[in-house]
């Protein structure tokens, strides 16, 4: 038996040293040491041996088992070492990666989100109002004369029942003041509509961001500071801003805001991007009338309001030349804003 075991050990040692993979070694382990392995079968014969033979055979059996195990382990380590050395030897790291989607939000949403973030930091909260409005919210309450051209059917979309598509988001100013006591500090993004043919610079429906701040002692200085901060947040701190006197029925004084557009190789140019002003006392008076109180007394409170055209902001910010690109949703366009 001892001799037999010695032969088995020889066979095993040879087989192990010839093995090249971990799999082969696993199989060899089973062949020699498994439940039905060669060594196991011989071990089963131990009980048939005589008393004097047993100790030597037992010793030889253990030795064989240990030797095969050791050989296996050493070989496993050798093979692993060999394989480990190969890892990374042949990879072409210049091949492209597995693509994951890379899509950004629509440019209008990106601008809006930046504007809202900046304004929220200054304590504005959001408000909303319907897009199909009454003439009162869109014009009367906003101090717009009964025969103002904006009310014409040539300029504004109407419905059979006399309602209209709001021509500006300023309607939300009125709705907010009706529902809330001063102070109010709101912004409201949303759609506005004008009866304009769609071309490179016009859409019949576009997007605005409205703002209103009413409290005791709100001043032009607040208006200036707020809008400067907002525009610097969007266009960068170095952007030059100017407030140019203008006229709107619902603010007095009124201003248009220009920023100095500097494109390399071109003459710097002032571009109008927003309208703003101090809330006209007539707007407060109209709000009070509809509320049936005097909580927005022009003697007690003052306020400023502003409106930004989001398409315009996006066009200036990214140099987009045709406003229609913003509603066509060509993926070759959208992809550039990822």
């Amino acid at each position: 038996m001892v001799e037999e075991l010695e032969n088995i050990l020889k066979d095993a040692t040879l087989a192990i040293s010839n093995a090249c993979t971990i799999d082969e070694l696993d199989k060899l382990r089973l062949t020699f040491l498994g439940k039905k392995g060669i060594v196991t079968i011989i071990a089963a014969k131990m009980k048939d041996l005589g008393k004097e033979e047993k100790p030597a055979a037992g010793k030889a059996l253990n030795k064989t088992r240990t030797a095969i195990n050791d050989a296996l382990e050493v070989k496993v380590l050798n093979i692993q070492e060999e394989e480990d050395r190969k890892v990374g030897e042949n990879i072409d790291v210049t091949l492209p990666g597995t693509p994951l989607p890379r899509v950004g939000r629509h440019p209008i949403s990106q601008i809006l989100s930046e504007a809202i973030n900046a304004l929220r930091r200054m304590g504005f909260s959001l408000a909303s109002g319907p897009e199909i409005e009454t003439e009162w919210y869109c014009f009367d309450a906003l101090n717009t004369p009964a025969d103002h051209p904006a009310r014409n059917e040539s300029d504004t979309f109407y419905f059979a029942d006399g309602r209209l598509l709001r021509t500006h988001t300023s309607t939300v100013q009125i709705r907010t003041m009706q529902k809330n006591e001063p102070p109010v500090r709101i912004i409201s993004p949303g759609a506005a509509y004008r009866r304009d043919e769609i071309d490179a610079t016009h859409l019949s429906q576009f997007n605005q961001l409205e703002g209103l701040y009413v409290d005791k002692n709100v001043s032009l200085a607040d208006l200036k500071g707020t809008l400067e901060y907002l525009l610097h947040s969007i266009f960068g701190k170095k952007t030059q801003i100017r407030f140019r006197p203008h006229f709107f029925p619902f603010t007095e004084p009124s201003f248009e805001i220009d920023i100095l557009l500097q494109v390399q190789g071109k003459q710097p140019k002032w571009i109008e991007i927003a309208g703003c002003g101090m809330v006209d006392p007539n707007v407060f008076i109209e709000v009070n009338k509809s509320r049936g109180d005097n909580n927005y007394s022009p003697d007690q409170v003052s306020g400023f309001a502003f409106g930004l055209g989001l398409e315009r902001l996006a066009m200036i910010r990214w140099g987009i030349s045709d406003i229609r690109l913003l509603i066509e949703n060509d993926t070759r366009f959208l992809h550039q804003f990822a």
Partner: protein
Amino acid sequence: MKVSLDWLGEHIDLTSYSPEELDHLLTFAGIEVESIITMPDKVIVAEIKNIKPHDNADKLSVCMVDDGNKDLRQIVCGAKNFKIGDKVPLALPGAKLGKELSITQSKLRGTESHGMLCSQKELGGEDDQGLWILPTESEIGESLNTIYPTIFDLEITPNRPDCLSHLGIARELSALSGKNLKGNSDYAVSETPHRIADKSEINNLDPKKCSFYTTRLIKNVKVSKSPCWLKTKIESIGLRSINNIVDITNFVMMEMGQPLHAFDSNGLKGGICVRPAKEGEKFAALDDLNYDLSIDDLVISDDMKAIAIAGIMGGANTGITEKSQDVLLESAYFIPSSIRKSSRRLGLSSDSSYRFERGVDPSQVIGASELATKLILELAGGRAEKEIVVFGEAAEVPPNVPLDAEKCRELLGHHLKNQEMFAILEKLKLKKINEKDNISEWEIPSFRSDLTRPADLHEEIARAYGIDNIPSRQAGWFSKSSEADHFFDFIEAKANELSSIGFYEARTIKLTSELKIVDCVCTDNCNAIAIKNPLSDDLTHMRPGLIASLLDISERNLHQGAERLRFFETGTVFPGKEITEEAQHLAILVSGPDQNSWLDPSPEPAGFFTLKGVLERIINRPIELSLADQKEANAAFIANITINNKAIGCAAQIAPSRARQIDARHPIFVAEINLNLVFEESSRQIIYQDLPKYPAVRRDIAMELPYSLPNIEIEKVLREIDSNLLESFKLFDLFYDETGNQMNENKKSIAYSLTYRNHERTLKSAEVDTEHEKVLSKLKTKLPIEFR
């Protein structure tokens, strides 16, 4: 409005300002400078010496012109309105007209042309009817930019009609620059006597629309071309020179802002009557068009016929021509709202109506008549009646306005001294009547009828002081977030998530057409709201859903070669049952394979379950889908989506026939959900669960069941099983053979894996067997299934 720098110079000395400085001054007065126009270089006066037809082109002629040099210059020209001896502008080679046109020496249809003869429009004016015929006195060879001054094209806001004249602009510049006005600057003072009209002379039947009407008769005038100075002045600001009388009325209007009208008095029968037009009254105006008038329009008429639409345009029947001898000069004050209404209704606007509808200075009505008469007598001779005949009264001066200096300081947010405010108002020609502490009272000049309230005075002070001089204040305030804030953030989160998994955000406009509405297969599209006055056939209704626009942009992208379509849009929709109903929706569209790569060169195209997977992730609540009964022509099928049995929207496959119309190569799947409803269901409390300490045991079930049995029936049974050990279950295989070879085609095979766990101890195999047996028998009794 175009104003000439030279003309302004007659009222105020502007020599120390560059055009850029003036631009700045005007801009910050609230007067927008749209452009500064100067005559281009290398454009000179030339005289036509010879005209002959072009050999190869009927529409062209070949002219020889005298440009002041010895040899005549040959020019090919397309206009017809000139004759030998006319003086016209000649653009020499090298001249640049506008942004586009550079003049070069060239051949036109084989004939050499050494320059170009120009129309007024080509040189920045408005008249494009043929060549610009220059005054005969013009000197040949003289450069046009020495004859014609720099022009500012200004946009005057509707609250400042007083700025619609050279005097008005000069007055404004004087207030802002501190430079005094010079020359004639006060036309409110008149020397001409006037008398109240006899009813037979002027009869005003509508004093509510015309409060003051005056005429003056000038006999035996000689109508002719205007002298050079007048023609140049009129043309320099883009108007067409017609004859001396008409040019004088235009000159007075551009000088002081009061529109005038001159009638050919010989065409008049009887006296003047200011009256409402008759309903349906026809009127042939000076613009050669016929107008149908209504009772709301005001006309000037004689005993027989209408001779002018009041304040807007005169009639062809009484216009001044070379043959006119006697002129009846009208100067009046028409009520702005009346002119505005008529002008809108008739679609007819003129320089005159533009001023009347904004409000002219009533105190200048007589003064304007006086200046025009003086000029007519000078330039056209004749004899004027001694008196101006008047009907009604010039409007009263605007009432005084109080100023609370403290209130003004509060509004500015800046400490401006009372004296500084007063100085500003005084420069603007307001007069302080009295003053006590911070309160003062101010008399308003007649030309500033826009100043009626303290707020108007605050505006003037802010404007003139300059907002640049007011410090900006940046303060933060606490503000509670509103419901609108929460909803906005909710939608933003959904949108950000969708774009992070590769969906393009679309933004489309909310107007659509009846044709497109049928594509809104996921929303009720029967009640879309129609716009009363649509602008075009493709934008006639409010969108009842978003799918139509997503299909639209899919088509656009397919046509530019896109194969992978992944779009979403969020926004307002208008279901239309009630006009006041508006909802925020989210729509998703998927079609085609995901982006391929070298590792996966041809990925599978998206299927319905791609869409459902996106919905499950985005909605983040257990949703149930069930096939809907409703049918839409453009949908292959529609499924209702519910959360907690509440309908929140629909998913659908676009009908293959519709998909083919937009050249789609893969099936298109869409879904649209109401975000307001999802938002209501979105609050969820997360409570931490202890991590399991003991291992779970997994058992699989394979079952065969009728093909038509929806999967949800199995899940319902599994969910209802009362077991402490069954932790979760998951579908992991579905097999179906439509050929019937491997399995009856009316059957499908479904495999679920079930997970059992006891949180107190390790499960014994026998325990799991018993529990699993319970599950199997429950399934077997509830459903027509066989285990495999």
